[in-house]
């Protein structure tokens, strides 16, 4: 595995209010409309050397644009040997993964925790 040290030091935590950049709550809408904002958060989390957890319980709506972004994130993390947990992926997210043929990419890079019931 190539292991590249992240170019920016971890200490730059200005924009993470929860002081925990290892955890990111995905918005209820992961779509083209929200993708720009989401990309900002994801690129920030990208360089975190600690495991990153994506909290996906409240994702209600996704489209291919949103999934494309998540796929790029997950792939890039894996390429750097860094792990991502997807926590409680909602049924909308799982359906999109399956229909878009991205299941493998996600499961190989990610170990999801059991998903929440009833969402």
């Amino acid at each position: 595995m190539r292991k590249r040290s992240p170019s920016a030091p971890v200490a730059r935590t200005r924009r993470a209010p929860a002081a925990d950049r290892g955890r990111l709550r995905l918005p209820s809408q992961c779509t083209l409309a929200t993708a720009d904002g989401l990309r900002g958060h994801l690129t920030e989390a990208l360089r975190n050397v600690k495991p990153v957890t994506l909290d996906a319980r409240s994702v209600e709506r996704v489209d291919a644009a949103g999934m494309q972004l998540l796929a790029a994130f997950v792939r890039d993390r894996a390429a750097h040997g860094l792990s991502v947990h997807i926590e409680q992926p909602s049924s909308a997210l799982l359906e999109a993964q399956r229909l878009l043929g991205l299941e493998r990419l996600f499961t190989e890079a990610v170990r999801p925790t059991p998903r929440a019931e009833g969402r």
Partner: protein
Amino acid sequence: MTLDLTQFHAAFFEESFEALDSMEAALLQLDVGAPEPELINTIFRVAHSIKGGSATFGFSDIASFTHSLETLLDELRGQRVAVTVPISDLLLKSVDVLRDMLRAVQGKIPIEAQRVADLQFDLEVAIMRKGDGAAAGAAAATAAPAAAATRRTWHICFRPFAQFFARGNDPLRMLRELAALGSIEVTADVSALPPCTQLDPQVCHLSWTIDLAGSADEAAIREVFDWAIGDCELTAQLDGGAVIQLLNARGEPVTSGPVMSGAATGPGTPALTVASDAARPPAPAASTAATVQAPAVHAVKTDAPSVSGIGDTGSIRVSVEKIDELMNTVGELVITQAMLSQLGRGLEGPFADRFRSGLDQLERNMRELQESVMRVRMLPISFVFSRFPRMVRDLAQRLGKQIELKVTGEHTELDKTVLEKIGDPLVHLVRNSIDHGIEKSDARSAAGKPALGTIHLDACHRGGNIAVEVSDDGGGLDRDRILAKARAQGLVGSADTLSDAQINDLIFVPGFSTADRTTDVSGRGVGMDVVRRNIKELGGKIEVRTERGRGSRFIITLPLTLAIVDGQSVAVGSETYIVPLVSIIESLQLKSASVSRMSGGGEVFAFRGSYLPVIRLHELFGVEPRAHELHQGLVVVVEGEGRRFGLFVDDLLGQQQVVIKSLETNYGQVDGVSGATILGDGSVALILDLPGLIRVTSMRDAA
């Protein structure tokens, strides 16, 4: 990892019912002989999306039925089957059956399977009977649900262009539609996906290969990507077969057979895309002679089971409860604001002026907020009007009359609650017009009128109200016959002479009917009184104008909303009452000379050349007044149910918008009071119901 689809059922049903309504509207517009291709496309798309949705949710009966329907529509679209009256009847019947099937699934109730099977058989027969026999066999074979047995696998290569997302396309939706056609195995190609840091989320970097196993044909696959023409490259290959290019490298449709859809118009131009289509403004309001049209037909474009409920058109579906909650909160805010204003008035000190100007600002903002929230509840009356073209058509056919329905003003908006309750009265009026109003063609011709009768539905804003009008150019009300019947039924004494208005009013009397025999359409004598009662319950009124031989007009006036009323607050003793501003004619101080006492004990006063009775509010409500003599207080001249009278009060307080709180739900029904409101100082004021007041007074006088 099973996906729980039940959560999407409600949205699917709701959208399907709406889609069926628009399909029905489009069908009614369809000209026999020369159908408009765009209309057929619209109808086709509805059938297609219902099929897709029902297959996704596992409603196989509906999917199978809509499949037959869709196939027939496809034949119409390809002009291999002509649009004839029997065909359009068949399609309308299919809409009915589909609606019932959806209702049955929704309510988990059984449906008459034979009826569905019969109609599906008729559909299949119609498909088989199409023009050219050669192609017929093959197409019908793929069309028939029985052909589902022939399973095959398509290898589909789907390469969206960079601008795919930006044009409003979502591959996820297309793949979902493909999944509805059979079982799919999807592989995404992420090789072109740039690093996350350099990724432009608006650009599509993914492409897909899809293995679709099932009975889907080429046309079905094309249909899925119908909206993406010009935005992607698409090939499909049947196992071992040749590669069929569906959309070429420029995204243009490559047609191998009959042109698939209206979207594939000019082969050279990157034809219609979702984006350009969504941007197209809705058709201008059909001003004359058109049946209900624009909004409904346009709404059809909501794709398949667009699961989220968020359409492409920038609108969102919100439950009524949420809006009502919002409305309620705004109502409370209005009360709080009124309370603050009242406090502010008495305030003194250095900040009092600034405080008051802030309050003024608050009041303006409140009013705007209130209006915006109220507008959210407003829906175009086309939601009600849209059911009439079908009804008129069916009834006219059954009664052997020729009737054209004219609809205008269908974009007029009114409160959802009012809208829901106005449907039945309108149905009744239209039915009456068809049954009693419009004469048979020969009678019309004999009277020198065009054989084709016209019923006109119209809606418009009039002051703070909405006026809805049902008019016809039929025979009009028969004054003499009504009077004779009323006398025979003992509703009018044989010696009484009545004005025209009073005679017209007789048709609203319970039990009154002039129909010589009862039909299943109308004539049972229950109806017009119910119509009037329903309209009154909405705070509206109905009047009729008629001309013998020329037709009649029923004019319904309705309030814009039921939640808020502009009121004049009046003081009686220590109590405050609200009089709806719309019913106030004027307020005046009487001179003792202008008041006369009647022999029966009532009081009247002279007002513009006539004498009006006085209702003393304090007597009616048992309040100790400040003024006992009429000339000491004020008289508010009001009108209720066409009758004018004076309300005797102590003082006028001010005009304000008040939020109506139902007395019936919070306490109980009180005659003469339509509701209550909370005033700025926190006290409760009763809102007067003027027609009710008249009733109470006359009952009291009679006792």
